[in-house]
């Protein structure tokens, strides 16, 4: 033995292995990661992979057969709803495990545990926000409500068993890629994780508000200016429930707080804390036309919920057939049932209500320990809990959170959100979704509804997030309910931070379910109605509705949808596809005349004139290869900045810029809108001056964009379907898709129509659908992104509602047979 070389060689080899066997910061464990038998290579599925199998699952009551079609969409034939839930859990885990778990970590405020603190501690702040908002408490409360319902309890138990049956047999080498990248392993699935996922959706859809910014605006601006910047009405809005609908007299008589003027509406207290609320345009479109307007005489229902366009997709498409129902649609990996879809009798689709159900109260604590707060004339004890936030690679953070009668304290001197400024104030939050509720019961029942009254009954347990749920059935009934449990509010309650020193500002109850806005359309040709229902997150009702609804509603998509549906008859499914993927920009339609009317030609050079001609002759479609939408977008952005920034930047406070509709309607009403003048210059600017200056700034942007090859609309807005970890290598980038925030085809940069569905309620049902993703969550699978190009091109897949005699059909590519094992 050569001692020295031996030990040197032993040392170097061992050192090499040790280096390759540990994580360096965020890197994977390289040796394991590269090993073709352990690492990422194991996730590279052969493109002709067979998905067949005989799978024995403990706890399965009967047998189940799953037929996969050429798009890897499972058609589940199960002996009971319980077995269907069990198999659904297994399939979700088989194809989407990492995503399912990751989303529940995001819900529970556990991202830093796996991803580290993030840039500028952003992930820790995110985690603290979610914990303080009460996501975990809310999920536990919801779970308790679900488990009280024996049907739902059994269903989620079965679902959880299905997920775990897959996890338990998973070998380390088969772990989804992301676990190998980030170096952790999946936990056991629990019913609580399903509840957390539901709360995550509630947060996404009903977690938004702007109370702090509005409080500041109210304090900073004069009453008159405030009214001009944040008006309570939109001139051209077309509400979900048409204007002029009569409403029931309110059952709840609201009592205004005695101090409402002095301590609330006229208060000039400001807030420096900053929030990072969910994307306010988490909206959607749905509509259903009655048979009176279709060529077949049968209703057509359409839905396209707008969510972050992510990979793996938030949706998993499937058919579930049991002895009692046959349902097709999209499910959420993370929970049982089909969420949006149709069965053999009915179809349903949902959009967000955008109601404000998250309000803040200013809390006066006795001292810095925050153990007692002033409430109804005496010091009252606050509950306190300590949250442990684990942070990868760092010591955990212990966060003490006080809970008041209003709800948990979201911000206090120890946590100012995303603000860098210190603050000595405390704000408690009351969020509707934190109250206990059983939404899963609604979806459980939806699988088997037969008619309008079943639908109406199934709705009742749905409390949060409030949704516009459109409905149509084969008997010809069409309906839409704005469903949820909404706090009954007096005018401007919760628009600003409310005083939290007595009970008079608390929510005084919920709007009774039968007072929620709704409309129904029958097939009766003699009944004079408009023949359709629709919603696109606009204001639900007109001002005769007896409760306060806030003002934060986008209106342009809804306007266009109603205009189109009013003007079309003898509708076919193809018409609906054309409409769902329509790029017409109704906001531009209204804004363009104003811009063109006010342009000062003398200040424009030849290049500018050429662009102006483009813009003037534009057909108002935000099409992928158009340049005019780019001009318009820059132009409007500069105009907004030039009009408001001089006043707004002076305040130094977090403020919200007025909505686009506010500026446009103000300028259309009055070209001498006072904000047009730049307060930083001695002279008084006019609208033509400002419009022209904004155009000249746009020209500079266009030159820049030309250099970067971003002159066409698709390249300029740059739509992605982005991996949940935001890594471009795992995303689909630079998609050639038009549309935008004001179009029915609301495809923005990272956000858009997450599932386009059209259901024609003929017999048999004719249905089409597509989502930006693929059935497999594995970036190494051809089914990871297999729908994306079609989705971007505005094409659809025909949805195949398989029947049990078609097991031998050539459309069936793979079969999984499930059976129970006796041992359990």
């Amino acid at each position, binding site marked *: *033995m*050569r001692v020295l*070389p*031996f030990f040197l*060689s*032993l040392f*170097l*080899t061992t050192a*090499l*292995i040790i280096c*390759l*066997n540990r994580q360096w910061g965020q890197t994977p464990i*390289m*040796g*394991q990661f*590269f*090993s*073709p*038998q*352990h*690492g*990422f*290579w*194991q*996730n*590279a*599925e*052969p*493109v*002709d992979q067979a998905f067949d199998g005989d799978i024995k699952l403990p706890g399965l009551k009967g047998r189940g057969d799953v037929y996969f079609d050429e798009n890897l969409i499972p058609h589940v034939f199960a002996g009971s709803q319980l077995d269907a839930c069990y198999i659904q859990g297994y399939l979700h885990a088989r194809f989407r495990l990492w995503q399912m778990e990751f989303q529940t970590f995001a819900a529970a405020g556990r991202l830093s545990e796996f991803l580290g603190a993030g840039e500028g501690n952003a992930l820790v702040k995110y985690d603290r926000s979610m914990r303080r908002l009460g996501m975990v408490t809310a999920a536990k409360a919801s779970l308790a409500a679900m488990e009280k319902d024996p049907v739902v309890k059994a269903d989620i138990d079965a679902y959880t068993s299905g997920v775990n049956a897959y996890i338990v047999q998973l070998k380390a080498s088969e772990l989804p*890629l992301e676990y190998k*990248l980030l170096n952790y392993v999946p936990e056991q699935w629990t019913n609580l994780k399903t509840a957390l996922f539901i709360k995550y959706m509630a947060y996404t859809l009903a977690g938004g508000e702007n109370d702090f910014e509005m409080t500041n605006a109210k304090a900073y601006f004069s009453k008159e200016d405030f009214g001009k910047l944040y008006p309570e009405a939109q001139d051209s809005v077309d509400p979900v429930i048409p204007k002029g609908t009569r409403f029931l007299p309110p059952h709840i008589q609201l009592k205004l707080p005695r101090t409402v003027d002095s301590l609330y509406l006229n208060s000039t207290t400001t807030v420096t804390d900053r929030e990072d609320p969910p994307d306010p345009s988490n909206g959607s479109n749905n509509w259903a036309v009655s048979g009176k307007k279709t060529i077949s005489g049968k209703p057509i229902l359409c839905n396209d919920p707008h969510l972050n366009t992510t990979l793996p997709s938030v949706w998993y498409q499937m058919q579930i057939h049991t002895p009692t129902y046959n349902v097709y649609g999209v499910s959420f990996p993370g929970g049982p049932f089909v969420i949006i879809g149709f069965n053999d009798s009915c179809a349903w689709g949902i959009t967000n209500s955008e109601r404000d159900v998250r309000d803040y109260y200013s809390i006066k604590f006795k001292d810095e320990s925050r153990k007692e707060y002033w409430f109804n004339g005496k010091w009252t004890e606050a509950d306190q809990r300590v949250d442990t936030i684990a942070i990868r690679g760092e010591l955990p953070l212990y966060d003490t959170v006080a809970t008041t009668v209003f709800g948990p304290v979201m911000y206090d001197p120890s946590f100012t959100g995303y603000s860098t400024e210190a603050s000595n104030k405390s704000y408690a939050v009351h969020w509707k979704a934190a109250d206990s509720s059983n939404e899963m019961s609604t979806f459980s029942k939806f699988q088997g509804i037969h008619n309008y009254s079943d639908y109406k009954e199934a709705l009742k347990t749905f409390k949060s997030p409030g949704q516009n749920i459109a409905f149509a059935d084969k008997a010809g009934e069409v309906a839409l309910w704005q469903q949820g449990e909404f706090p009954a509010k007096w005018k401007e309650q919760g628009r600003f931070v409310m005083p939290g020193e007595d009970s008079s500002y608390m929510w005084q109850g919920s709007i009774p379910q039968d007072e929620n806005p709704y409309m129904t359309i029958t097939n009766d040709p003699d009944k004079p109605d408009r023949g359709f229902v629709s919603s696109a997150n606009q204001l639900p009702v007109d001002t005769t509705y007896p409760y306060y609804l806030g003002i934060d509603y986008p209106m342009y998509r809804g306007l266009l949808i109603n205009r189109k549906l009013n003007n079309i008859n003898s509708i076919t499914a193809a018409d609906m596809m054309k409409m769902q993927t329509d790029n017409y920009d109704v906001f531009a339609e209204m804004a363009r005349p104003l811009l063109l009317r006010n342009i000062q030609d003398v200040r424009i050079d030849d290049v500018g004139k050429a662009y102006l001609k483009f813009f003037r002759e534009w057909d108002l479609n935000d099409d992928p290869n158009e340049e005019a939408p780019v001009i318009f977008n820059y132009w409007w952005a500069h105009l907004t900045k030039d009009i408001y920034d001089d006043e707004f930047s002076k305040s130094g406070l977090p403020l919200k810029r007025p909505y686009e509709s506010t500026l446009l309607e103000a300028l259309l009403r009055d070209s001498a809108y006072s904000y047009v003048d730049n307060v930083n210059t001695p002279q008084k600017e006019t609208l033509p001056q400002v419009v022209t200056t904004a155009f000249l700034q746009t020209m500079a942007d266009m030159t820049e964009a030309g250099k970067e090859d971003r002159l066409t609309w698709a390249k300029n807005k740059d739509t992605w379907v982005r991996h949940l970890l935001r*890594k*471009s*290598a*795992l995303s689909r980038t630079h998609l050639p898709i038009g549309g935008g925030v004001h179009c029915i085809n609301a495809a923005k940069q990272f956000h858009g129509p997450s599932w386009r569905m059209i259901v024609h309620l003929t017999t048999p049902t004719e249905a089409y659908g597509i989502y930006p993703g693929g059935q497999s969550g594995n*970036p*190494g*699978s*051809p089914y*990871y992104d297999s729908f994306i190009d079609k989705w971007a091109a505005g094409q659809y897949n025909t949805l195949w509602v398989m029947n049990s005699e078609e097991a031998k059909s050539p459309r069936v590519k793979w079969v999984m047979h499930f059976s129970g094992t006796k041992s359990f």
Partner: protein
Amino acid sequence: MVVKFFVTTVLIALLSFICGLFLPWWSIALAAFLVSLLIPQRPLLAFFAGFLGLFLLWGVMALLIDLANQSILSSRVASLLPLGGSPVALILVTAFVGALVGGGGSLTAAFLKK
């Protein structure tokens, strides 16, 4: 000598493959060590036998997987790592990582035996 070299190389690859089915990834070092202990060679040759054995094993396995996968995953992972999205580069890096560890295992055995 040439035959011995190639037999060692093939045996290292074979044993590494079998170890990889049941043991952690670094068992390839043990496999190379064991084979080189049984078939003594000069240290430099032993190193190259281990190196080549693992280079071929990991490289060929990665290549076969990649062909069957039509480079779907390798092009994504090669963009995630700074490899310019090149599947070929990713296969070479994979082979090289295995080769270094295998070579190290063999070399250590050669010095022990000598």
